[in-house]
């Protein structure tokens, strides 16, 4: 089965919508089991393991993060945060057989109570075609002002 450029682009849009609508079970199902969600701390950071990152999470951590959001004693989510992605049309930078790389520029808004923050992001997706479906192999999210002091970022940019 072949995947078109448009199908890849639609996949990226669909993923952002799942996050904004809080459909986390659907979102987790997009991932390959050994994938990592990486959010670097340093501008143009190359090493996720031996330096501090904001996030470098395997599926166990991502499931924990999502599960926690709905807990009865998740105090920082009373009331819950909401988020909103505004994305540019993704660039499909690589199409090699069953693996694909996209880069997407976006604005991310997260809000809770009287606070709202806006982050400018660049997301790189490593996608793979497995059993006829596109899946996330890895995702890297760079925050434009990664060196700034942040308040809580509680959802998934």
């Amino acid at each position, binding site marked *: 089965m072949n995947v078109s450029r448009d199908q890849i682009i639609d996949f990226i849009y669909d993923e952002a919508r799942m996050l904004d609508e809080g459909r986390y079970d659907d979102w987790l199902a997009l991932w390959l089991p050994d994938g990592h969600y990486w*959010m670097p*701390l*340093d501008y143009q*950071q190359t090493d996720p*393991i*031996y*330096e*501090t*990152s*904001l*996030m*470098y999470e*395997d599926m*166990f*951590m991502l*499931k*924990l*993060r999502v*599960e*926690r959001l709905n*807990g009865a*004693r*998740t*105090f*920082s*989510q009373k009331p819950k945060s909401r988020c909103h992605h505004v994305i540019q049309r993704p660039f499909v930078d690589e199409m090699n057989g069953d693996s694909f790389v996209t880069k997407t520029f976006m604005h991310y808004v997260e809000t809770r109570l009287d606070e709202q923050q806006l982050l400018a992001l660049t997301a790189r997706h490593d996608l793979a075609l497995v059993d006829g479906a596109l899946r996330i192999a890895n995702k890297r999210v760079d925050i434009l002002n990664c*060196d*700034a*002091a*942040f*308040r*809580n*970022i*509680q959802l998934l940019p």
Partner: protein
Amino acid sequence: MTRYTDNPDAVAALIEPHQVHRDVYTSQEVYRLEMKHLFANAWVFVGHESQTANKGDYFATQVGDQPVIQVRHSTGDIHVLYNRCPHKGTKIVIDRQGNTGKFFRCPYHAWSFKTDGCLLAIPLKKGYQDTRLSETENAKGMKAVGAVHNHRGFIFARLAAEGISFEDFFGDSLSSIDNMVDRSPAGRLEVVGPPLRYMHHCNWKMLVENQTDTCHPMVAHESSAGTAVKLFEELGLPEGAPKPPAMEIIAPFMSPYEFFENMGIRTWPNGHGHTGVHHSIHSDYTAIPGYFEAMVESYGEDRAKAILDENRHNTVYFPNIMVKGPIQQLRNFIPLAADKTIVESYIYRLVDAPDELTARTAMYNRMINAPTSIVGHDDLEMYERAQEGMMADGLEWVNIQRLQTEDEDFTVEAVENGTTERQMRNQFDAWRKFMLMSMEASA
């Protein structure tokens, strides 16, 4: 209206043996006095020497609310200078770190200074020929802080020109920094990358107190640590199978009260203290292949074991840092206002130890200390709820009475039950001492 300025009696009355008045957290006037007195009289953390490894390297930070530069001078010594041009007040460096070469040059009028702060040159100097510039403080150059001390790579400054010595201020509490450094087979640490920077809308002391608050993890962090334990059990992994890394780092936060009671708390004079006298949440980390062998090679087996058997949890160095020896972390709670604190969380590499140790240290930092951390989120929520809740006029005092005993003497070292709030009382005892040291009543 000023209630506390030039009024040491009023400041002293904010602290009682079993409670503190909310103004220590909420009053901007008290915050200003803390910056002027407490943060001037105490020894305050500046940075690590590896952040300024080469001559001319500088690192810009704050001591209390004072902008300072840590810089490696041409002689190899590290100096700490106020980040202010003596001419018009312009900050000399604005980036967080860099190399300035042999001298600093102010970007406004090009006054230049040696890296020890001494005035080097002023352009068009003849304009001052018939003035008495040379008699002013401004002509001496960039002003240095009162005193600087490098303890095994960690740079501390005292802003006040006169005052308590470094050794008298820290005493035996330096054993926690020593243990962290000793964990390197080379006896040396190096900073790794930039710190996490996390903005809190609460008073800095809440963060410091929380470092030895052992009755909150199983409550405030149930949503992260408790859920981690639950998810792990659902995986149904066979006995002895490798655990997800999150389990090793986060799950110990769910330990029962007995665990924290038995771990013990030690306090030292001048507000320093640590949790985890006997064991801690860091005690049961997996051994990293090759590390113990490297330690034995450097120290011999007995000494290597003694270093690694020490698993202190959080050591508070009064007033505003916390060190985790077993995992090579330092958190700097920088006060910006009565209700605003930035937390910078640094990690260090153990020179000549396996890289896997750095990987675990980096993982701990992002899982626990990041603005994206599911553990940090609930801590920040508690601090900020307290900052807002304290504005309630129904009750003006905050209780710090857990396991208090009659006539506590903070001038002696003590080891007690790990859930005592003695370390919080110890901090406030030191707070009063270093606040009042330089305060005089108005005539």
